[in-house]
């Protein structure tokens, strides 16, 4: 043995193994363990799925009561046939895990503030945000309540959980999903709590807009003063076409919320007197839920369709991600047969149809989250002033594990209102040093999972009403249609009976006078069944006109124009077919621009414009008002409109140390139409000149032209190139995402596709004897970036095409030519 060369060689070998087996820090991210990652037998190569994989399998699971057959169709949609309901949910859990394990794990980690555990201290601020908001607290309430009071749901979630875990237990290390290998961590067993955490995250996604908006509106009001504020953020929406048609008569309210006597002086006109503590370390909050988290849904009665049978349409608009939030599935047991989009992480179908009834949801947008300002006795935060005395808090401990670092412990003061989210230990620029407790309906135990369980089995209108009566948060507009010909829509959730402007801003929390005075009884929530006009619809607009006896919340929460567009089309349509409905769901008509373009043109003195601006205005006036993929007119319109807005209220909003909420487009449009000498049009920074709309439109067009010329140079004037719609992988890694999709649409458009947001599941159900259904989502059934089924629907989705959904009995499905594979689940 040659000792020295041996030692030298051994050390080098060990050194190379060590380096290749370590995550290296590259800029802000960490590399995978390169040797492991590249190993063809263990690393990412194992996730490179053979393109024509045979998915046939036979699985033995002792947890099952009976055998279960799963057939996968050519789009990899499973059709589950089970003899027992619980077995079906076991298999659903197994399949969710088989195809979407990493995503399920990741989403619940976000919801429960456990990202730092895998990604390090970098993600600590996101974790602290969700912990302090009470996400884990809320999920615990739901879990305890279901375990104590709801044996059927407990059994359902338990069966789902053991299905996920049955997959996990047989998963070999080399077959871990790709992202685990990339980020170097391992999955852990599923628990029922993770299901509730996931549903909690949906509550956050759909009602959490207020987490940021209430702070921003408060700061905006403080900056502008209430008088100016109420002009720019008016609650009047002149052109509103509500979900429940105007003129509907509402019953007398059972709760009449009383506005506190000092509200005008201490609440609305309040100027924040809080000292801005510059020493405070600010945390960055996660990006607030998109204001456009919304959706369209509608149902047309047989009187308006060619077949004489109802057609129901639903397209929830959410962040567009890969792997998709949705996973298609058919579940057939002796009690029901249901098809639709499910959430990996939760049992049952969320939006879909069964053999009697179809249902869909849009977000209600009602405000169910408020801030109350606290006064702590001292820096221990053990006591706070409430109703004339010092009251003790209880302290809730949340331990955040941090990769490569010590644990971080959040001690959250729990108050009468809820968790004290912002205090001396946690501030962001918008919270401005205040101590704020959060009161949120999502903190209360929810039986939401049962709503879907019941909807999956609903046979008629009464079943539907019963199912949704259990629903509390996030408030939704549930649309339904039955084979027997009924259509209906109801706005359902736990909604606070509010006095006008209650909770739009941070409220005083030192006594109970600003507390919620009740939850509106379910029977008083807006509902309409079989209206004469032959359709029901919703698109996140306000549910009712002002004759409804309760305050719905600040108008800025409610998009106006999509609803107008949907109703405008539906009113004129007749002899409707599913193909007509496909055209409507993907319709790109810009109803806002239909009014806004002539309103702008009225103030435009073309002869005074520069040559380039004239050319742009020419482009605008020839535009066909459709947000089509290749349209330049819409890009010109958007840039000009934004510039005019900036010219009109940029001066009022200038000079704030933090970003303020931008007023909604309808505010300016309504004023342009009124032809008034609106005082806001004046640029308050020019002392010796009073500007009017003509000046501001001219300025807006010239400013816009500069931007447009730049875009023209970059060849980005065409709408889809400008908008650059993308479907992002949850890690935001571009290589795993689909970028720059050729698709039209946008804000205010029925096809509500913006940059990274839009129709996340398009569904059309024709309630004929044999149900005829179409649908797709911008993703694919497999969550594996190495699978051809990872993004297989994306191109079709962008093109506005649909798949005919296979919803068949077992006998018929087996014979169908689109049925490709068979997975047998056998009880031991």
């Amino acid at each position, binding site marked *: *043995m040659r000792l020295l060369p041996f030692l030298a060689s051994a050390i080098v070998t060990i050194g190379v193994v060590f380096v*290749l087996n370590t995550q290296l820090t590259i800029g802000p991210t960490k590399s995978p363990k390169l040797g492991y990652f590249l190993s063809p037998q*263990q690393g990412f*190569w194992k996730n*490179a799925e053979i393109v024509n994989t045979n998915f046939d399998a036979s699985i033995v699971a002792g947890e099952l009561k009976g055998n279960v057959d799963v057939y996968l169709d050519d789009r990899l949609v499973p059709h589950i046939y089970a003899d027992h309901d619980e077995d079906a949910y076991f298999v659903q859990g197994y399949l969710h895990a088989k195809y979407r394990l990493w995503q399920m794990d990741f989403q619940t980690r976000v919801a429960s503030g456990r990202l730092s555990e895998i990604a390090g201290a970098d993600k600590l601020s996101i974790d602290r945000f969700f912990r302090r908001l009470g996400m884990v607290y809320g999920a615990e309430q739901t879990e305890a309540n279901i375990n104590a009071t709801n044996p059927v749901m407990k059994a359902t979630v338990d069966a789902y959980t053991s299905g996920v875990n049955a997959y996990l237990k047989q998963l070999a290390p080399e077959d871990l999903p790709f992202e685990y290998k990339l980020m170097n961590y391992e999955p852990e067993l599923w628990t029922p709590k993770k299901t509730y955490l996931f549903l909690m995250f949906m509550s956050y996604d759909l009602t959490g807009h207020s987490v940021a908006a209430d702070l921003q509106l408060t700061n905006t009001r403080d900056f502008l003063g209430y008088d100016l504020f109420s002009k720019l953020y008016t609650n009047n929406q002149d052109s509103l076409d509500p979900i429940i048609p105007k003129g509907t008569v509402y019953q007398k309210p059972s709760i009449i919320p009383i506005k506190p006597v000092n509200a005008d002086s201490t609440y609305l006109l309040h100027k924040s007197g809080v000292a801005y503590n510059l020493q405070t370390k600010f945390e960055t909050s996660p990006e607030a839920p998109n204001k456009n988290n919304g959706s369209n849904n509608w149902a047309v009665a047989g009187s308006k369709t060619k077949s004489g049978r109802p057609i129901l349409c639903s397209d929830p608009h959410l962040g567009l991600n890969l792997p998709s939030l949705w996973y298609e599935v058919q579940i057939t047991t002796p009690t029901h047969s249901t098809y639709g989009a499910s959430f990996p992480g939760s049992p049952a179908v969320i939006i879909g149809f069964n053999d009697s009834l179809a249902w869909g949801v849009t977000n209600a947008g009602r405000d169910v989250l408020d801030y109350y300002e606290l006064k702590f006795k001292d820096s221990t935060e053990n006591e706070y002033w409430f109703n004339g005395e010092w009251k003790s808090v209880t302290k809730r401990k949340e331990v955040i594990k941090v990769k490569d670092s010590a644990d971080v412990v959040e001690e959250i003061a729990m108050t009468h209102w809820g968790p004290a989210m912002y205090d001396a230990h946690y501030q962001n620029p918008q919270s401005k040093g205040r101590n704020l407790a959060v009161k949120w309906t999502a903190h209360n135990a929810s039986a939401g999972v049962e709503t879907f369980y019941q909807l999956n089995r609903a046979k008629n209108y009464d079943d539907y009403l019963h199912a949704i009566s259990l629903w509390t948060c996030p408030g939704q507009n549930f649309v339904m249609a039955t084979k027997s010909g009924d259509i209906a829509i109801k706005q359902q959730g736990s909604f606070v009976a509010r006095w006008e402007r209650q909770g739009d801003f941070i409220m005083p929390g030192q006594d109970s006078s600003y507390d919620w005075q009740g939850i509106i009884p379910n029977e008083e929530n807006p509902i309409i069944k079989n209206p004469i006009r032959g359709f029901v619809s919703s698109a996140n607009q306000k549910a009712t006109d002002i004759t409804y006896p309760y305050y719905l919340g600040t108008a800025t929460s409610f998009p106006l124009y999509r609803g107008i567009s949907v109703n405008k089309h539906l009113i004129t349509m007749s002899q409707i077919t599913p193909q007509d409905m496909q055209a409507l769901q993907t319709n790109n008509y810009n109803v806002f621009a239909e009014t806004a373009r002539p309103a702008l043109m009225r103030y435009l003195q073309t002869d005074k414009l520069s040559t380039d601006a004239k050319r742009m205005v020419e482009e605008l006036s020839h535009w066909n008002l459709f947000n089509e993929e290749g349209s330049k007119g819409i890009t010109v319109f958007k840039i000009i409109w934004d510039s005019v807005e900036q010219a009109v209220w940029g001066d009022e909003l200038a000079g704030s140390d933090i970003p303020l909420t931008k007023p909604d487009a309808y505010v300016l449009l309504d004023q342009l139409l009124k032809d008034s000498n609106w005082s806001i049009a004046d640029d308050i920074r020019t002392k010796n000149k009073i500007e009017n709309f003509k000046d501001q439109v001219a300025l807006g067009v010239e400013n816009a032209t500069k931007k447009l010329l730049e875009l023209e140079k970059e060849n980005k004037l065409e709408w889809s190139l400008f908008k650059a719609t993308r479907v992002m992988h949850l890690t935001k890694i571009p290589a795993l995402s689909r970028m720059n999709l050729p698709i039209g649409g946008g804000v205010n458009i029925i096809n509500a596709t913006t940059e990274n947001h839009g129709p996340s599941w398009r569904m059309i159900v024709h309630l004929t004897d044999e149900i005829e259904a179409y649908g797709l989502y911008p993703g694919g059934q497999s969550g594996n970036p190495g699978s*051809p089924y990872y993004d297989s629907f994306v191109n079709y989705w962008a093109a506005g095409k649909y798949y005919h959904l296979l919803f068949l009995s077992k006998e018929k499905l087996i014979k169908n030519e689109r049925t490709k594979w068979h997975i047998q689940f056998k009880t031991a």
Partner: protein
Amino acid sequence: MKIIISILLCALLAYAVGIYGNLPWWSFVVTNLIVAIVVPQKSFHSFLFGFLSIGLLWGGLAIAIDQGNHHILATKVATILPLKGSYISLIVLTSFVGALLGGLASLTGSFIKMK
């Protein structure tokens, strides 16, 4: 003959220990080392055969997988790493990483028992 035996043996054993995901990915370092002891070579030759055995094994497996996968995943990974999205570069890198370590392992083994 010895050349072929040692390359084949290295590759075969490396493949065998690679099947078990519970063993570390670098288990072939140990098998290469053992082969270098059992089938003694000159140091340089040992390195070369170790290099070739794992390089061919990893490269070959990667090529086979990538063909079956129509380059779907390799193209994505080659964008992340970053290799400008070239699946060929990624296969070369994979092969080289395995080869380098395989060579070093065999070299180390060759010093234990020299003629």
